[in-house]
């Protein structure tokens, strides 16, 4: 076990060395940003090598922090290079049969997501809603959805407090957390590509 882990670490270290070498050679700022993303993956790889439940729990915050830094740097890059924000009006993906196909697909994905529940279920159901939204050039006020996401997130956090303070009600907390995260991820993901931060009048 320890031997396998050492080999794994060794391979990741070689990959890290290659990535850092590329980073040192690169002169273009945008390419550096892209290479940094590759380097970032390796830190997740090292955590994943643990291969335990703990590792799984550590990957998510690690990934979140990495993405947050990446987004911050991207924003600085845009400001630094004077790239102006363009107003984007949705993705407008062309779907041949607008009436039925996206609807059937999204219903299938949402139902399947409900059955899966939890984080994965939320991602699947959210994907279903994205399919629906991008194929129908939706023009509605989505702030309500945003609020629903916030409330379901609060439910998730509340369930965690039940775990901590009233462990005997763990089943209620488990259900609350599962439903909360399902709703939160579904709603958040469905907003990807539909809310662009512009003011809809």
């Amino acid at each position, binding site marked *: 076990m320890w031997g396998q882990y050492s080999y794994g670490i060794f391979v990741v270290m070689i990959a890290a060395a290659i990535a850092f070498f590329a980073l040192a050679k690169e002169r273009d700022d945008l390419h550096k940003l892209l290479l940094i993303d590759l*380097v970032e993956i390796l830190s997740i790889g090292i955590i994943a090598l643990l291969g335990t439940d*703990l590792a799984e729990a*550590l990957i998510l915050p690690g990934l979140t922090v990495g993405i947050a830094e990446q987004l911050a740097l991207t924003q600085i890059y845009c400001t630094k290079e004077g790239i102006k924000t363009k107003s984007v009006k949705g993705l407008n993906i062309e779907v041949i049969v607008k009436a039925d196909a996206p609807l059937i697909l999204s219903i299938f994905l949402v139902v399947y997501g409900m059955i899966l529940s939890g984080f994965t279920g939320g991602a699947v159901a959210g994907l279903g809603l994205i399919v629906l939204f991008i194929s129908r050039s939706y023009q509605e006020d989505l702030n309500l959805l945003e609020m629903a996401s916030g409330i379901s997130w609060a439910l998730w956090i509340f369930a965690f407090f039940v775990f901590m303070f009233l462990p005997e009600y763990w089943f209620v907390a488990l259900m609350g957390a599962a439903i909360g995260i399902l709703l939160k991820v579904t709603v958040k993901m469905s907003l990807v590509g539909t809310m662009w931060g512009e003011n809809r009048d």
Partner: protein
Amino acid sequence: MKTVISIGGVPSYILEFGDELVYFTPYTITLFLLALTFTVLAIISRPEKQVDIAFGGDAYRTKEISLSEMRFRRFMAIACGLASMGAMVTGDIFNFTLFTAMVGITNVGIVAAVKSPHVQDAAYQYGLVALSATVPLFAGAAVYAAATGSLSMIELMKNTVPAVPFLAKAMLVVGVVGEGMAPFYAAKAEMFRAPGAPYVIMCSLSSLLIFLRVVEVVLLG
């Protein structure tokens, strides 16, 4: 029999919240109070305006800074203070690395709103260093977990777990150094051209506090 050197002293208070472990020693409480004081100062103090004096004459001019820019920087300084406070009191190695990474982001954020190309460029380059430093930082925490089976600093203190490999400690320190300590600190020099005194001070203070804490962490176990 290995001897454990602890500069933190005996923990006077331990709060175990699942894996959210918080403890106070005389050492960490001092650092925590320092971070708290400076966060409060960042909240209540009024930012200064930078004055440029023309060489060889009497002319001087103050730089105009917009209110929205100052608001954003104050928010980032407070976030930086909160992340530093978290890093001071946490008893979990991985949480410590997360807080350190957060301090790295907020340090960039404090100066990123400044509309000077020099400052922007320096912040970008420093951001690249901070981002690549998360590799040794998280790797260090992962090797801690692999070698000892625990991320709890209390367990490390009790001396009941296997010894932490030197590699893990080295990676943790390299990661912290990359997030804003010397020698990469030099990359920040240009960032300090950013006007607005109390907020820029938060960058250096948070780096100092994180460095003082990591010294305690690597001496455990």
